[in-house]
């Protein structure tokens, strides 16, 4: 694979163009040409298609998209491109089983295939959602260690305030909050009895390269994970390249984070699926990552559980996992909040889709991961159990189940119930769920079992 220095050279010397030219004259037309050339067509009646030919065409389209379009750097206003030979070499040399965690929690994250009987990696927790203060942060992360036995790694929340002050990205408080989150998170996992469990979203608080690098000095290990995010679509700023430069030298696992927006420059579900494949290649060669972490998101609903996003996730997941050994994790963001019927349906639908289509999971946020304190360890635990239960299920069977689940919630996506806050349905001090939530969970598991997911 070409060196990081070569990548940086191209960021500085690639073809100059304005951002709007890249968006409208280069990216958008090429996506549409490739969707048409490869006859890729969204089928709302089959959110999980069982068509290997379609999956392979989507992969080829995504490969050509990345080869022809590349990545745009807004800081240099230049396009970084790679040749077909360089991309084939990168695919062949991409990591296939990176090891995360320490001690007895150390484990290889192995890429899967559609309908695989291999268990998915369960990267679960808050999905970076916001928690109001340090005490709740510590309580939740400790509960993750104790309450989520199927967790292979955790995703910690983002702290809204420290020392009574509101955290502001780009300010010194962001740096201090990032350091605090690492110190508290590591200690909480130790208290919860799983000190080696990898924190795979590094520091949810760190929006800038400075904060991410600063936080890393206070307890994160190379065996943890660092999401480094593309900006939609197919853009990388200097700040992200700074993070990549630091992490490759530090030896940390970069998680190539991508969120193609359905309704944005990608267009519809077809273009979103193709763009997701292009991002996969960028994760390997541009970002030097250990895995691809993606969450195609609906432009209007701000979640990943709509029918069209489900199709895009399934098809791109199948495309990638059939044609690449570079691990893929799909992040799911549910629209509804804790202790609602809708969130159970959304979780079951999203996780089933990802796992049978060949991916592993990150779960992720509920209440769109945008409402402070609206998440608990119950939802990620459910996600991990669904992920293990649907292993080996055929895409056809899963398609039938997901259609039933979608029918139960998609009418409510415009106004999803927010549900309860952590402290309203959880015993914060004892780190266990309240009785009301335990009873609700039991009822909903029974219903999901009746729908075809044995829990």
């Amino acid at each position, binding site marked *: 694979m070409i060196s990081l220095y070569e990548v940086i050279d191209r960021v500085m010397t690639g073809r100059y163009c304005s951002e709007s030219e890249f968006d*409208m004259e280069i990216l*958008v037309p090429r996506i549409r040409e490739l969707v048409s050339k490869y006859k890729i067509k969204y089928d709302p009646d089959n959110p999980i298609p069982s068509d290997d030919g379609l999956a392979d065409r989507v992969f080829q389209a995504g490969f050509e998209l990345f080869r022809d379009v590349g990545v745009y750097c807004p800081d240099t206003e230049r396009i970084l491109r790679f040749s077909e030979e360089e991309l084939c070499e990168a695919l062949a040399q991409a990591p296939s089983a990176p090891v995360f965690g320490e001690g007895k929690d150390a484990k290889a994250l192995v890429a899967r295939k559609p309908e695989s009987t291999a268990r998915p990696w369960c990267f679960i927790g808050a999905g970076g959602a*916001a928690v109001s203060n340090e005490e709740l942060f510590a309580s939740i992360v400790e509960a993750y260690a104790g309450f989520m036995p199927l967790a292979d790694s955790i995703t910690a929340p*983002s702290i*809204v305030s420290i020392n009574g002050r*509101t*955290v*502001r*990205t*780009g*300010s010194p408080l*962001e740096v201090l*909050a990032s350091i605090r989150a690492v110190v508290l998170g590591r200690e909480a996992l130790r208290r919860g009895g799983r000190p080696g469990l990898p924190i795979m979203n590094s520091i949810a*608080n760190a*929006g*800038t390269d400075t904060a991410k690098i600063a936080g890393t000095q206070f307890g994160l290990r190379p065996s943890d994970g660092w999401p480094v995010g593309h*900006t*939609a679509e197919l853009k990388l*700023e200097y700040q992200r390249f700074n993070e990549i430069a630091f992490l490759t030298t530090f030896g940390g696992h970069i998680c190539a984070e991508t969120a193609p*927006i359905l*309704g*944005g*420059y*990608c*267009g*519809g579900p077809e273009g979103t699926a193709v763009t997701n494949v292009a991002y996969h290649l960028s994760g390997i060669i541009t970002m030097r990552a250990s895995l691809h972490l993606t969450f195609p998101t609906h*432009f*209007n609903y*701000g979640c990943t559980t709509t029918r*069209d996003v489900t199709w895009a996730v399934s098809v791109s997941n199948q495309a990638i996992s059939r044609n690449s050994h570079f691990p893929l994790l799909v992040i799911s963001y549910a629209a509804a909040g804790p202790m609602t019927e809708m969130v159970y349906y959304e979780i079951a639908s999203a996780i089933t889709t990802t796992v049978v289509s060949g991916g592993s999971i990150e779960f992720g946020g509920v209440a*769109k*991961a*945008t*409402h*402070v304190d609206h998440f608990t360890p119950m939802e990620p635990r459910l996600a991990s159990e669904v992920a293990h239960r649907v292993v080996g299920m055929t895409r056809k069977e899963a398609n039938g189940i997901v259609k039933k689940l979608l029918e139960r919630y998609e009418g409510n996506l415009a106004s999803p119930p927010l549900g309860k806050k952590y402290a309203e349905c959880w015993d914060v001090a004892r780190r266990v769920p309240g009785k009301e939530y335990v009873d609700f969970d039991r009822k909903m598991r029974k219903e999901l079992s009746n729908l075809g997911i044995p829990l």
Partner: protein
Amino acid sequence: MVTARVFEELKEAILELDEEKVQKVANDLVAQGIDPVEGIEKGLSQGMTIIGDKFNRGEVYLPELIRASNTFNAAMKILEPEILKRGEERTRRGTVILGTVKGDIHKIGKDILAMLMKTRGFEVYNLGEDVSMSTFLKQAAEHSADIIGMSSLLTTTMPGQKEVIELLKETGVRDRYIVMVGGGPVSAEWAKEIGADGYAETAEEAVSLADELMSGKR
């Protein structure tokens, strides 16, 4: 009859996203002495409304909104001088300054809103991302804005919306503008807490809210 046909062709040019056609029809309109304000209201704006509705139904996407906006602007370059010459005024629903706050580089949601507002007849100045407090204020004053719209997609950049409102108060110009806030983690409660005039969860709701708030201002 001829006039109605010209209006229809302006509408069609918007729907076909055809800049060349819209320029030709706009030139024909001027040559025939047809009222350019009527051309905007009965032709271009109707096309823009249809495109906006199609976007909300998921039938077209952001690129179509951008192209429709470019087509509209191409016609306006021809029609606006004619309007000035005639001493007329075109109806605008309001002038909007829009940007993502300092420290936040999220773009697409805000861009969708900018385009959707244009389809509904607002004059929109999209300041981009990572916009400083002073830029919001300077641009609002320069364009005599009715509305300042601020987007934030991170919990930790939301305070940027509050900082702009506080600066508006400090500089004594808060009452000049309607302030709207939005973005993933933003809520109606947050909007109320920081003293914004309105919050909307989706782009379509934001356009309706802007209309409603402008009715109050007029």
